């Protein structure tokens, strides 16, 4: 057994807990999770059945933590995890799973398969079976501070543009601000309008906020690749900055996995609760709406629909807020079938978009989103995750569809009444 395989198996051993043991004990191989997964529904290939993606974890559970499996191992019978197997499984665990968690909502015995995939990735990465794209992103995140290699000067340049465009001062490193806003590299590079939008909204509502120059990056490649140490290090940077600036809360930007990382995994990765709160930007906006601090004018006339980013909706619990906000500014809001907690993934989450090898299948399974959009004849799509937005745009282009993809925060900002 190679050292890396041993390390990977050891990592899998560490990952197994009571939920994993009970999930594997409960699986009846009914195959219903396949129907929940767009990688299966759009390809029809049984190997994409979600529960099949966690086979390496199951084998380790069985041979290490069940009596019969132990006995089998003792006598040299039963399945084992090999490098060949992991090579085969690498594309199943990383390329064709966005950890969207839709299967976890369908499983009749209640297996949280997304939770299982997340743990399987820990072993895969430790065994050296992570895709190159994610390895590169993780390296850049640790060394440069951003998976896309965005450095502080780049942010400062974008802030400069925004300040010029809006005439507003973007607060950086303001101690004692109520909120510290994180950004995703994708927003900094592709959607700097987001920075202007939050500046405008917070100004409108009279909210004090800041960006940290030391930890502005919200995304966490460590979680996507499945290396807790890397994930923890990235989280720690944010925690340190937030505590240094003594903010009351940290706001996760329009990015799905960033919210999941900072909101749900973060405290567990660093091993202690935060001294501040964490919100998704939509949660903050909806609070402001509730408090009557958002005054809008005009309504969008187009048939708008909303794409629920998996980690924000299904795995994050931000479900009503976007609806409340859209209804303030859109007359013809329509819900796609399966909207809300059962929404279909864009196909690019969970590190799939960072993994060039998965591009082909990602575009293939976009068919699912296309079908959803076709069904409601959407004239515009609003979302709250820049990763979703980028890859939905790419998918729409691939499928020759002409539907604008909008940021909810930005669209809302456009409808604010001038002070």
């Amino acid at each position: 057994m190679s050292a890396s395989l041993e390390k990977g198996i050891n990592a899998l051993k560490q990952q197994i807990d009571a939920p994993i043991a009970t999930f594997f004990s409960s699986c009846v191989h009914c195959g219903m999770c396949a129907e929940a997964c767009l990688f299966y529904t759009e390809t029809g290939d049984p190997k994409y059945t979600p529960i099949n993606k966690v086979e390496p974890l199951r084998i380790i559970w069985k041979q290490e933590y069940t009596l019969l499996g132990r006995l089998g191992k003792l006598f040299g019978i039963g399945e084992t995890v090999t490098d060949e197997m992991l090579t085969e499984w690498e594309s199943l665990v990383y390329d064709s799973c966005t950890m969207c968690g839709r299967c976890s909502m369908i499983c009749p015995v209640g297996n949280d398969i997304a939770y299982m995939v997340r743990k399987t990735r820990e072993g895969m990465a430790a065994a050296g079976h992570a895709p190159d794209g994610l390895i590169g992103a993780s390296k850049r995140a640790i060394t440069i501070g951003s998976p896309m290699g965005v450095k502080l000067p780049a942010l400062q340049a974008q802030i400069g543009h925004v300040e010029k465009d809006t005439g507003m001062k973007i607060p950086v490193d303001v101690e004692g601000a109520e909120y510290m806003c994180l950004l995703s590299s994708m927003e900094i590079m592709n959607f700097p309008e987001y920075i202007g939008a939050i500046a405008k909204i917070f100004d409108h509502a009279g909210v004090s906020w800041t960006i940290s120059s030391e930890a502005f990056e919200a995304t966490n490649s460590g979680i996507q690749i499945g290396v807790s140490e890397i994930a923890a290090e990235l989280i720690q940077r944010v925690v340190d900055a937030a505590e240094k600036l003594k903010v009351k809360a940290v706001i996760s930007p329009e990015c799905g996995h960033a919210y999941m990382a900072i909101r749900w995994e973060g405290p567990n990765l660093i091993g202690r609760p935060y001294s501040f709160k964490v919100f998704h930007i939509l949660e903050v906006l909806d609070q402001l709406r509730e408090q009557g601090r958002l005054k809008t004018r005009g309504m969008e006339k187009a048939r708008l629909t909303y794409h629920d980013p998996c980690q924000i909706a299904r795995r994050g619990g931000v479900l009503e807020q976007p609806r409340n906000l859209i209804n303030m500014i859109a007359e013809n809001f329509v819900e796609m079938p399966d909207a809300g907690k059962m929404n279909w993934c864009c196909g690019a989450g969970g590190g799939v978009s960072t993994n060039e090898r998965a591009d082909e299948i990602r575009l293939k399974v976009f068919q699912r989103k296309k079908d959803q959009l076709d069904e409601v004849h959407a004239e515009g799509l609003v979302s709250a995750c820049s990763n979703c937005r980028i890859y939905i745009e790419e998918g729409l282009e691939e499928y020759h569809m002409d539907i604008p993809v909008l940021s909810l925060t930005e669209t809302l900002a456009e409808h604010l009444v001038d002070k």
Partner: protein
Amino acid sequence: MTEVEFLIWVRGPGFQIASVIFVAGLLLRLFEILMMGRKANLAEAKGSEMKSGLRTILSRSLHTSPTRSSAFSQTAGYIFHIGLFVTILLFAPHIMVFHDIFGVKWPSLSTTVIDAVTVVTIITMFAVLAHRLHNPVIRFLSKPHDYLAWFVTILPLITGYLAFHRVGMTAPSLIAIHILSVELLLVVFPFTKLTHAFTLFLSRWYNGAISGYRGVES
């Protein structure tokens, strides 16, 4: 061994062996699972784990399926699970076994109803097997133990039906074979996916808890 000695054995030592393996095996498995433990969640909760977990235990029995293939699995699943509950728990001679062991009893259904339910359950279970062999996903996922679990589950239904209608053999043999098939089920139970009958409460609870903690009903 004569058929009567066979019947005496399955009602006596056979039943003892099977019950002991079943109970000890099941508890062993449950402790094996639960003692793996779970780290406390340090993130601030959006909802109650307990409430959501309990809700999911129930709601996963009620939710509807999106596709036709799943719709079959689900409908057939309902039928044969309800069938198993009815035939196991509402047939007077079976209730007597529970009463003898646990000291509790409840009303029974007429044998005509039990008989009809048995037939429906057997047919459904064959349909489930056909589906398993025919559906590409389920066939792909199936391992020998899946077929073993199916076999040991349908066996008591078939032997029970044959015993009730006295098909092929005399009553003591048929009843003995029926009891033996139940003993086989009991012995195999803790070490196959059949444990889901118990562990699904745990897994649904965990699923609901994980989701509920994040403020989502699963």
